[in-house]
């Protein structure tokens, strides 16, 4: 079969980095082609070259056997390439519909034709089972839903080749299933999909072929039918890694966090938390499972002082800390790994050194009085970077220049190094490669061993099940069920996440 897209010898260099080095890749019509690789392997860069965001420094691109030059994104779109980017490319104060229409010619040019587009998109939504409120503005939507909009956007543009850069990172299992169903529908009609993901299960489940990249080069392309997860992992990392995790039984101590009938509003001013109660003991991980947008983000924000509670109580180590500001909570030894690492967790234009100071900058030994102790901070930052294997040229590098994975590690290093009594971790492995995910999970377990209480919020059900001692399932701002140890099974949780209550 003739390739739909063929890349030959693509090279892309950044100062000091060979992001893509002589990359060859062939995408066949009707296939789902997975792209695997560690953080920084060059997957996104390669796709940006295909999508016209970057111009390759060398190499050729063939579309249906003919060499083409993709000089701009418009070229790529016109050819029939669509891309769902790793970081959402949505305009926050426009509506879903406007985001979908953006950049397209209207049938009544220059006037917008919202009615027609709305009808068409609604059809599309029904066909693929992707429900979104078209008149909502993006900022009002939870991340998971925003991802849906991204996919709709690409689908509406009738892409013949759809590139998805880590699209499943924020989706629930059922949403992932839905997405895969959508992707299969596409490929059944002869369209092709390139799927970038760090999840080997997904690769095995949906992809026809898989290409593994390492250090900017293609290691190998092989059909999924002839391989397994272990092999892929080895190809990616260049060594064997354990995919299973051992954990000791819980040794729980006194109650660290106690939440009672908590209420809060979301950004739209609507109730997001509607009476949430739970407690976490020392040495215990409470996992919060749920479809994105059911109040988990708001819960984390209320508990960390970033969002006011409208009612209810939060007790930390026996003290009422309801609506305490972040600093007061940090002083009670709380640590927070936030969901949005670029917006909240880091100051991208600060150096790594300065970023390690967030949340502790005012404390001894990093400051004496108001005087900042630069030497101590430098040593501290250098140590963190070494211990947590943050790949960076040095501590004076700006955080902006780190890959997402390394940014996440930096946050993790900073927060865990405080030896918190209570750790609130929101999606801490989102977007990380297997190696990094493994590392993060081990670190979190280690802190559980040490005796920290951990609230672990994730939309990744398997991850929750792997790590949690207790699982609370969130639905529409309430806990619909608390499951402990042996009660846990995928199917019940899945049902509860969809709203069916079960007495705990």
């Amino acid at each position, binding site marked *: 079969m003739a390739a739909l897209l063929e890349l030959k010898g693509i090279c892309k260099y950044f100062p000091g980095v060979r992001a893509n080095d002589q990359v060859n890749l062939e995408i066949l019509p009707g296939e789902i082609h997975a792209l695997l690789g560690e953080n920084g392997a060059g997957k996104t860069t390669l796709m940006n070259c295909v999508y016209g965001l970057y111009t390759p420094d060398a190499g050729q691109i063939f579309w249906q056997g003919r060499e083409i030059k993709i000089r701009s994104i418009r070229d790529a779109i016109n050819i029939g390439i669509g891309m769902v980017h790793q970081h959402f490319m949505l305009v926050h104060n426009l509506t879903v519909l406007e985001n979908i229409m953006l950049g397209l010619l209207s049938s009544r040019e220059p006037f917008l034709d919202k009615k027609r587009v709305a009808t068409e998109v609604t059809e599309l939504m029904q066909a693929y089972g992707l429900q979104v409120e078209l008149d909502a503005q993006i900022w009002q939507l939870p991340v998971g839903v925003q991802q849906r909009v991204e996919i709709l956007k690409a689908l509406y543009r009738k892409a013949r080749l759809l590139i998805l850069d880590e699209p499943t990172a924020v989706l629930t299992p059922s949403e992932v299933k839905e997405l895969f169903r959508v992707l299969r529908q596409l490929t059944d009609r002869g369209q092709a999909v390139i799927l970038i993901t760090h999840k080997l299960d997904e690769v095995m489940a949906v992809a026809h072929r898989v290409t593994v990249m390492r250090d900017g080069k293609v290691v190998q392309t092989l059909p999924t039918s002839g391989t397994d997860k272990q092999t892929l992992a080895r190809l990616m990392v260049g060594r064997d890694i354990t995919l299973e995790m051992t954990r000791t039984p819980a040794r729980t101590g006194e109650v660290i966090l106690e939440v009672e009938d908590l209420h809060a509003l979301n950004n739209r001013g609507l109730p997001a938390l509607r009476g949430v109660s739970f407690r976490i003991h020392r040495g215990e991980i409470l996992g919060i499972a749920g479809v994105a947008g059911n109040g988990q983000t708001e819960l984390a924000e209320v508990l960390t002082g970033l969002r006011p509670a409208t009612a209810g109580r939060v007790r930390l180590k026996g003290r009422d800390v309801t609506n305490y500001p972040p600093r007061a909570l940090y002083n009670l030894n709380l640590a927070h790994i936030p969901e949005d690492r670029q917006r909240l967790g880091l100051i991208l234009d600060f150096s790594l050194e300065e970023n390690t100071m*967030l949340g502790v900058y005012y404390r001894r030994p990093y400051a004496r009085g108001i005087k900042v102790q630069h030497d101590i901070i430098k040593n501290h930052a250098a140590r963190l970077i070494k211990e947590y294997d943050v790949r960076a040229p040095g501590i004076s590098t700006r955080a902006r220049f780190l890959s997402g994975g390394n940014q996440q590690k930096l946050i993790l290093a900073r927060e865990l190094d405080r030896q918190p009594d209570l750790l609130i971790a929101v999606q801490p492995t989102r977007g990380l490669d297997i190696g990094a995910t493994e590392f993060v999970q081990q670190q979190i377990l280690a802190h559980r061993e040490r005796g920290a209480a951990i609230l672990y919020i994730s939309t990744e059900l398997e991850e929750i099940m792997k790590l949690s001692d207790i699982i609370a399932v969130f639905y529409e701002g309430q806990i619909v069920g608390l499951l402990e140890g042996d009660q846990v099974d995928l199917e019940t949780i899945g049902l509860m996440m969809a709203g069916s209550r079960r007495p705990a």
Partner: protein
Amino acid sequence: MNTRLSAWLKIFNREGWGAILTPILGIIFGFAVAALVIFQQGKDPLAAYKELFLGSFGDLDSFTFTLLRFIPLAFTGLAVTLAYRGGVFNIGAEGQLYVAALASTWVGVSMPGLPVFIHLPLALFAGMVAGALFAFIPGYLKATRNFNEILITILMNYIGINLVGLAVNNFLMEPNQTAPQSSLIARSAWLPFILPGTFLHAGLILVFIFALLIYYILWHTTWGYEIRSVGTNREAARYGGVEVKQVIILVMTASGALASFAGSSEILGVQHRLLENFMVGYGYDAIAVALLGGLHPFGTLLAALFFGALRNGANSMQISAGVPVAIVYIIQALAVLSIIGATAARKVYFQVWFGGKINGSHSGRS
């Protein structure tokens, strides 16, 4: 053509000279273009520029005048720099320095007989309070209600300027006189002259003290960390335990206090009485000064010196070489535009690893 140019500039870049050379090239370019205008006016540009230079640095007297212009520009420039570091655009230095001058004058004329060591600090302090209060309003509105500070400060500039007009026509008007000006300020509130035989006043010392102080605060204290983090990423700062609203209000208020010294030192050190329009445009020039100075206190001082010298030399150039003062505006504008243009071009075309929000935003300690 482009490649040759880039090859040229690449050499500078590799040598690390670029950062220094580009502004200089920018200035040269500005002067070169303005030379054409001067030539077109039938004057000799070289002679004109010689006068410009002599007029600003030629002898002690000239240099004193350059410094006297430098002092208020440095204060307002530092004010803008500090606020900008905290993420607030203070376009209101003009209004702040006006009300400060008003307050200082009021203390200066209404409490004669106080000893110097009380009267002078009191007059400066009154100006500081007035400037700070004037800046507090936009700061407060921004922090608590997310009002656009650019808008508020522009409006308040006009209010400040008119308040001075109001004062010198009414309660501050010199008694038994008809001119809209205040009485002379009591000697005890004058800023002392620091260089015998010149009119250079102690405001200069204050400038350096404040520049050092701001530098120290920004990069060596937790306050500075808070200010810079709020200025770079407000949400992350809040996450990091910074009281963002407080910082915004404080930084704006402090900025107003700094700007106040521009007005107070001009009145207490130079003019010794208050008139309408006693100095015009220093609040707006401050923006150029601060940004040309890379939003660093020391850079701000350099830029203020450059502006002060240019404005000062301009008058000499006009007098000695017959070049219209308006041409100096052209030189000044061209210098500003070519400096920022050249600097930016260097960044854009020869430095891929440029991810800053705004040119010149330092992230590390400097």
